[in-house]
Each structure stands twice: as C-alpha cells, then as structure tokens.
C-alpha cells in the first residue's frame, strides 16, 4: 500500500517544517478586540505527528488556518519550510497550499456537483497535472482510502465516514509534505473515526507531517506530541 506514497528522505527528519514566532491573530469586533492567537511560538519538525487540543474558542481553528496559509496573521513570523510566508501574495500562497499542504475539514467540504473521483482530482487540476495522469492518481488515492468502487458516486450518495475518507484522499493526492486536519472526526461515529485515524497512522508511517486538531483526548493520544491551546496561547 505504502508504495504509492514516496517516503520523504528519512535523513531529513528533525528539520523544522513549521516555525512560529510570536504569531498573533486579532479580530476587531466593533470596539472589542478578540485575540484568537495571542502570541504563539511553536516548532513542528518534518515527519512529526502533532495533536492540538483545547477548549472551544481557544483558537485551534485559527491556528490551523494560519498554518494552512488560509488566513494571514496580524503579527509575528511564520516560516514554512524555512520560507517566510507573510510576504507572499495570494497567488504564491495558493501555490504553497497546493504543493505543500493537504487539508481535511470537519465539514468535509466536498463539491456536491462532482463525483468522488472529480473531487479528489481538484488539487491536481490547480497543479496543472494533465488529465490522464490526474485520473490515475485520483483513483490510486481513492484506492488508498478503500473507496475506489465509489469513485463515480457523488458526495450525497456517500456516508459521512466515506465522505471524510474521500476528503483524506483529496488531501493526499498531491503527496504533500504536511496534512492539516481540523476536527476530522468531529462529525463521525467511532468506527469511521477509527478508519480515518488509521489512514493518518499510515500517512505518518510514510513520513508525512501531520497536525491534527481535536476535542477528544482519545484522538489526541494518536499523536507523538500533544499541544494544548488555551485563550489563544500554547501551554
């Protein structure tokens, strides 16, 4: 199975993929300021499996959005693979997201009008991969998550657990160095949760960096390291 994912050079282990220096994200709501991230310092190395837990509203999703270059911090420095992303424009950020990061969201975020296979293909479309190769690679990714026979089904024809597995296939189809998952099991029952966590275990074994955000301690136990978030800070 793991042959489909070229393992990154193990000798590179220990090099930081993510470095955060005093990263802040402040939302201004009228006269009130919400410090969703109140100065976060962190370092996540290549190939690490890290879980982030914390109470609701502590800033976990905000952190993941910053890590995924979906949101721009209001202060501090974020180095991704040693590159400072705060000076990049939208087009460059889009390229970084496309090449380096695979996202798994709590709400799956699959496009309802497309088949599972077309959904998995999407990141490859923006990477400029030719059609036939896209087709092959998306089928291989679906095979990895055990859904190749559902390739032509639309999301509304799949169970929640199956939809999340399609989303995982979409996250790994570009073979990104890092997987960011924001409560990927939040909407799933225990057996689907086990399926998804199993996939993450395989990805970790293949050398991917994984950042998993969760409420649940049992889920967080999967990771090598647990970061605890509270009031916008890592403790």
């Amino acid at each position, binding site marked *: 199975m793991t042959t489909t994912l070229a393992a990154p050079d193990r000798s590179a282990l220990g090099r930081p993929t993510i470095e955060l220096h005093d990263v802040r994200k402040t939302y201004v709501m009228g006269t009130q300021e919400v410090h969703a991230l109140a100065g976060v310092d962190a370092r996540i190395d290549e190939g690490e499996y890290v879980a982030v837990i914390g109470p609701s509203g502590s800033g976990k999703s905000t952190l993941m*959005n910053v890590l*995924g270059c*979906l*949101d*721009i911090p209001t202060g501090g420095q974020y180095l991704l693979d040693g590159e400072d992303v705060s000076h990049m424009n*939208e*087009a460059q950020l*889009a*390229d970084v*997201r*496309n*090449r380096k990061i695979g*996202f798994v*969201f709590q709400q799956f*975020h699959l*496009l309802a*009008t*497309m088949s599972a296979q077309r959904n998995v293909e*999407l*990141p490859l*479309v*923006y*990477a*400029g991969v030719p059609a036939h190769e896209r087709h092959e690679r998306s089928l291989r990714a679906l095979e990895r998550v055990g859904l190749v026979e559902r390739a032509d089904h639309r999301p509304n024809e799949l169970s929640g657990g199956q939809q999340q597995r399609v989303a995982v296939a*979409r996250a790994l189809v570009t073979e990104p160095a890092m997987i960011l998952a924001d409560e990927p099991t939040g909407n799933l029952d225990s057996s689907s949760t086990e399926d998804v966590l199993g996939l993450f275990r395989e990805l970790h074994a293949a050398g991917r960096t994984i950042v998993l955000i969760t409420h649940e301690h049992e889920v967080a136990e999967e990771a090598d390291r647990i970061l605890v978030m509270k009031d916008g800070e890592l403790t």
Partner: protein
Amino acid sequence: MGFTETLWTALDAIRNHRMRSILTMLGIVIGISSVVVTVGLGQGAQDDVRKEIASLGSNLLIVSPGSSTSSTGTRGGFGSSTTLTLSDADSIADSSVVPDVKRVAPVASTSVSLVNGSTNWTSQLVGTTSAWQQVRNRTLSAGRFFTAAEVASGANVTVLGSDTVSELFSGQSPVGQTVTVDGQQLTVIGVLKSSGTSSTSSLTGSSSSSSSTGSSDDDQAVVPITTEQRISGTTSTALSTVYVEAKSSATLSAAYQEIDSLLLNLHSITSSSDADFQIATQDSLLSAANSTNKTLTVLLAGVAAISLLVGGIGVMNIMLVSVTERIKEIGLRKALGATPSAIRRQFLLEASILGLLGGMIGAALGVGIAMALPSLISQSVTVSPVALGAAVGVALGLGVGFGVYPASRAAALTPIQALRSE
C-alpha cells in the same frame, strides 16, 4: 490551470445550474434577436425603396406640378394642379431646346373603375405616350405596347399591370379581351411584367413620384393620353407627372438644368424659389426616403440597445448571485490551490459562454423572425451577415463586460472568509 480545465469548470457550472443559466441567457437572447430584427427591418425598408426607385427607369428625371417652399410644403395638390401641361412636355421633348433629353413620357392619370363582365376593380387609368415603356424601363409579359399612331388617334387600347390582370381576369390571358371604363370599351393589347417591387407605400412620403398619385406599378391600366383625356372628360391638358429620360447618367444634371430653366421660362417665373413645378432625380428620391427610414431605424435600434443593456445587467445580476451561492466552493478551490486569477478566469469564462450562447441563440431567433416577418407584414427584412456577427460579438462583450465585476469579487475573497461563510 490551463484553458481547457477552466472551460470545463465553467461548462460544468453552467450545466449544474441549468435553470439559472437559461434565465440568464434569456435576457441576451431577447436583446440580440430584437436588435437583429429591427436593424433588418430598417435595412429591408431601405432595400425596398432602392429597388422601387431603380425600377422607375434609368437616368430618370421626374417632373411634377406644384412647388415646395420651406414654410408651407407642397403647394397645390397633385392632379388638381394645372401648372404642368402637355405643351410643357412637348417643349421638353424638343431636342433643340433640351439637347440632353432622350425621351419624354407625359402622364395624366385618374382613378377609375375597370369592369370585365361582372368583375369590378378600382385602379388607376394612366394616360401617356408610346415612349412611356422605354422611359419607365418596363417589359411586357404578353402582347405589345401601344404605338405613336394609336396615341395620335386616341385608340381604345390598354396595357394592364400584372396585379390588375389577376384581379380582373383571374389567371386567364387578357390579351384580345376588353375591359369597360366609364362605358368605353378598351381592348387589352398587352400585359406589363411585374416591376418586382412590393408597393408604393414606402415612397408616399416623398413629395414627387409616380406613386404619389396613388397607383401601384403593378396595378394600373396604361392607355394613350388622348384616350385618357376623352374618358376623364377633361378638356384641360394638365399632367400629373412628366417622366424624362436623360441621354446618359453623365448628362443627367445638364438635363436637369435645361428642363428647370425651360419651364421657368415657359411659366414666366423669374425666381426659382417661386417655381410651380418640381424636378426629382432617383438620387433625390432615394435620399429623401432613406432619411425617413434612418430616423425610424435609429429609434428602433435604440430600443433594442436598451433591451440589450437590460440583458447585460441580467447577466451581471445572475453572476453575482452565482458568486454568492458558490462562495464556499470558491473558498474550497482556493484552499486547494486556485489562484485569484484562476477563479477570475472561471467566472469570466462562465459569463462569456452565457453571453456567447445567448447571442448565438438570439441571432438564430432573429433570423427566424426575419424570415417569417415578410409574409406577415409585407415588408422585407434584410439581415446582413455583418450585422449578425456584430450582434453575437456584442453579446460576447456583454458577457465579458458584465462578468468582470462578479469575477473580481469572487477572486478577491480570502479562502477562509469564503470557506466560513454560510
């Protein structure tokens, strides 16, 4: 993302929201088809007039009684005016006075009732000379035209227009038969071939032509002028029109000048602004008719342009709705690596496809209407390929133009704003 990918994405979006896409295109379809039809109507009317004027004859000058002054328009009604007489026509025919004139055909006409057995038909009795056929450049489909001798003797002969024949003789050959006018029996000696123009309606606005007497080129009974005078019972030699054929197109304006000064002289008028006659050329008729038509065309095209604008705003409206509806999709695409320009291209292409498709359907509909219309309103509609191409181009432009704003709005969203929205 390459062009084909963007194209497929745009086509997918259009297909997945079929109803919305159809409604968007509807505005463009209506706008474009009405532009095609109105411009076609204007052009068709102009073509009709041009054909009709050309069919009058070649190198033609049309002299008619009455005057036009800037303040009161035409003074003296046609037919009732007696300022143009047979002796004027004779003088114009005199080649020593008017060297550039080739032939002259004086015309006096009255409205009469033609009877064949139990069939009755009101038409125009056109009294003229044997030169009329050449001057008016008409051919016969049967029989012959009357001769100078028959004009001199006032023979009871007539040459009928093709429409008159079909009304009176219902398809039978009329040559050798008789028609009765005011108790006088006229032998039909010939039938005019149809002039090929629809009617005189489009010329009635111009001040002087054969048609302003109310006759149609294909519905008339042409008789020797002497016969016409006898039937109408007038002793006056007043004419409704004198058709003059110049020797060539090069001498047309010379002939115009010669006739003008001759008639001023004959009528003892010193100032040409007091002239009791008018001379029209085919060119002057054409430009008079065209200017009337042009006003109408501009007006109609203006209305059509407004409907196009409304259609364009419809496209923008739907595209904005589309952006709002698909804001999550935009966010996801961005999260997966779509650049702002890829999103912009997708929405712009979607709007362009809707515009282009709407334009092509609208053009096809317009052509369809243009083909159906002449049989309904007896008015030609000329659709030029250039106008069609321009209409489709405009539709595409509308799609692009009104798609730009929604497209850039979609592109400007940050991925998380878009993903988080409900």
